[in-house]
């Protein structure tokens, strides 16, 4: 019964596909899975916008939207109608073709990233050998769309926002890749379902999730920081900070194109949370061995929504980082720490099983963290201001 519930979507798809001749079955199966992804994740996006506004409201001692529907949960419908019926203004001197293509490229590449995430047992759309690389390739393509949006608007502020956004995304992309490489090293495969299978084992009650190892915890924290920066989320949302750059690279977008940017940003958040869940939190595996009766896709989406709540929580708490602080943080702290984490992971693997590797790795990572933190503090010399002029 639990196994049936676990595979309910697979059985549903197979049952629907059985109505067709054998020739059409594989293509229709894939098509049905694609339709499911395209329906589920934007639905989650709508839910997340409400949760975000209400959650941020509660954190800030106020109610969120509560007029539309019970407790305001139909607010996304109102937002959707608003964005569909707003006038689509394109600036006269803007590059119309590139201006039109930018949100499309964003949404398309972000949706492609969902193709490799294992959302449950046997529930991955395409089981690619180099699945993780595909995911990062799609993530890299989103940077291009950000640049296209900023440049085609023919607006200095948009261009500035786009350049900053791209610089930020490139810096943190390196961190993202390096923190995933340690997972690949231990699990021995770039294929995401295999990474989940490697974590789906239990010693006693406790799972073998990588976050429960010292290198995994460090890697997860670095991955989380990089993920927040990749999706331009607070505290790294300077490129779209309302008080600094109006709306940054999507200033000149109105109506449905703006909604597509918004959708793209939240979907990127979902897909990067999904990847983080797969790499470090065990994907669709249950946290305790006796909880496996709850379906795997429940666990996956539960963990993803938990990550989203942490994103919202961080947005409500932390102030925005300035561009130079952001870049300093990336290159001078996060990247060296991630490289060290990579080496510690290698050490972990070669030390073999036992309690010694736990102690050694924890000690190395802890002292490095404290040492680098102290170094960062000492580097702040606040003296008389000096000026550098552009040549």
């Amino acid at each position, binding site marked *: 019964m639990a196994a049936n519930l676990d595979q309910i979507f697979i059985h549903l798809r197979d049952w629907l596909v059985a109505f067709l001749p054998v020739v059409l079955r594989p293509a229709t199966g894939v098509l049905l899975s694609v339709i499911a992804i395209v329906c589920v994740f934007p639905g989650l996006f709508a839910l997340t916008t409400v949760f975000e506004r209400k*959650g941020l409201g*509660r*954190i*800030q*001692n*106020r*109610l969120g939207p*509560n007029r539309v529907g019970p407790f305001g949960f139909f607010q996304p419908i109102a937002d959707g109608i608003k964005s569909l019926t707003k006038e689509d203004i394109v600036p006269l001197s803007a590059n119309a073709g590139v201006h039109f293509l930018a949100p499309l490229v964003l949404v398309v590449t972000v949706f492609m990233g969902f193709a490799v995430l294992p959302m449950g047992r046997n529930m991955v759309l395409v089981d690619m050998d180099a699945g993780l690389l595909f995911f990062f390739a799609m993530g890299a393509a989103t940077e291009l769309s950000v640049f296209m949006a900023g440049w085609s608007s023919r607006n200095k502020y948009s261009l500035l926002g786009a350049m900053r956004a791209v610089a930020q995304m490139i810096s943190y992309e390196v961190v993202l890749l390096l923190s995933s490489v340690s997972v690949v090293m231990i699990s021995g495969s770039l294929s995401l379902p295999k990474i989940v299978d490697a974590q789906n084992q239990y010693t006693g009650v406790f799972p073998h999730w990588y976050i429960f190892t010292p290198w995994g915890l460090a890697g997860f924290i670095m991955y989380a920081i990089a993920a927040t920066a990749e999706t331009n989320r607070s505290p790294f949302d300077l490129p779209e900070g309302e008080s600094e750059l109006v709306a940054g690279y999507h200033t000149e977008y109105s109506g449905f194109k703006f909604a597509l940017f918004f959708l793209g940003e939240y979907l990127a958040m979902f897909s990067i949370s999904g990847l983080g869940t797969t790499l470090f939190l065990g994907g669709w595996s249950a946290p305790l061995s006796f909880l496996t009766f709850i379906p795997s896709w429940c666990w996956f989406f539960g963990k993803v929504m938990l990550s989203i709540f942490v994103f919202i*929580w*961080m947005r*409500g*708490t*932390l102030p925005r980082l300035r561009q130079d602080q952001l870049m300093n943080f990336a290159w001078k*702290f996060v990247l060296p720490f991630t490289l060290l984490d990579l080496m510690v992971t290698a050490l972990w693997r070669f030390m073999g099983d036992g309690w010694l590797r736990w102690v050694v790795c924890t000690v190395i990572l802890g002292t490095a*963290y*404290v040492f*680098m*933190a102290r170094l*960062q*503090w000492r580097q702040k010399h606040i003296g008389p201001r000096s000026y550098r002029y552009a040549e």
Partner: protein
Amino acid sequence: MLGEGIVKGMLETARNFAGSFVSKERLTTVEYPEQRIPTVEAARVFPFLVYDGADWEGGMRCVACQICEKECPPQCIYIEKSKDKKPDFVGKPQFYPARFDIDISVCMSCQICVEVCPFEAIKMDTQFELATDDRFGGLLLDRHELAKSNEYYHSIHPTESTEVDARLAEEKAKADAKTKAAADAAAAKAAAAAAAPPAAPPATPTKEGGS
């Protein structure tokens, strides 16, 4: 330690989030228009004209002295004096305003008209839900719309209105006493003149000194 402040901050916001469901001080929203914050007594929005008694036209305290019209900084008051006079609360015949318009889209609620009015005729109202869709006359209040009774004044500004009433009663009493004294003196003079016409002139100073 790097990250300590972040963790403390996140715990504080978590406390805020959880507390907003249970305690009032962590959720200070008042859902207008279903709930309202009670207005304080010294609140002021736009002026209104006070009238005593039941008749708004007859009991209006304003005597069209036009001091408020001259003192108003954005000049939003427009007064037309009447041609005839009617008696005021003391009994003295006074002019009254045939036309008293305040343009509340211009009024800046400075309360100068209230401060300079010698007759306690214009006071500040606390009503602020005055939005209207009539662009051309909806925010120009005339005499009838501005006239509100003294009981209403008591209901919105209790201490101020009792003070004003006390002052007006005192003035009325003084004026009454003066007229009474004048009437008494006149009556006494008439009586003295009638009662003792053959009285010697040296007797009158003592009579006048005694009254």
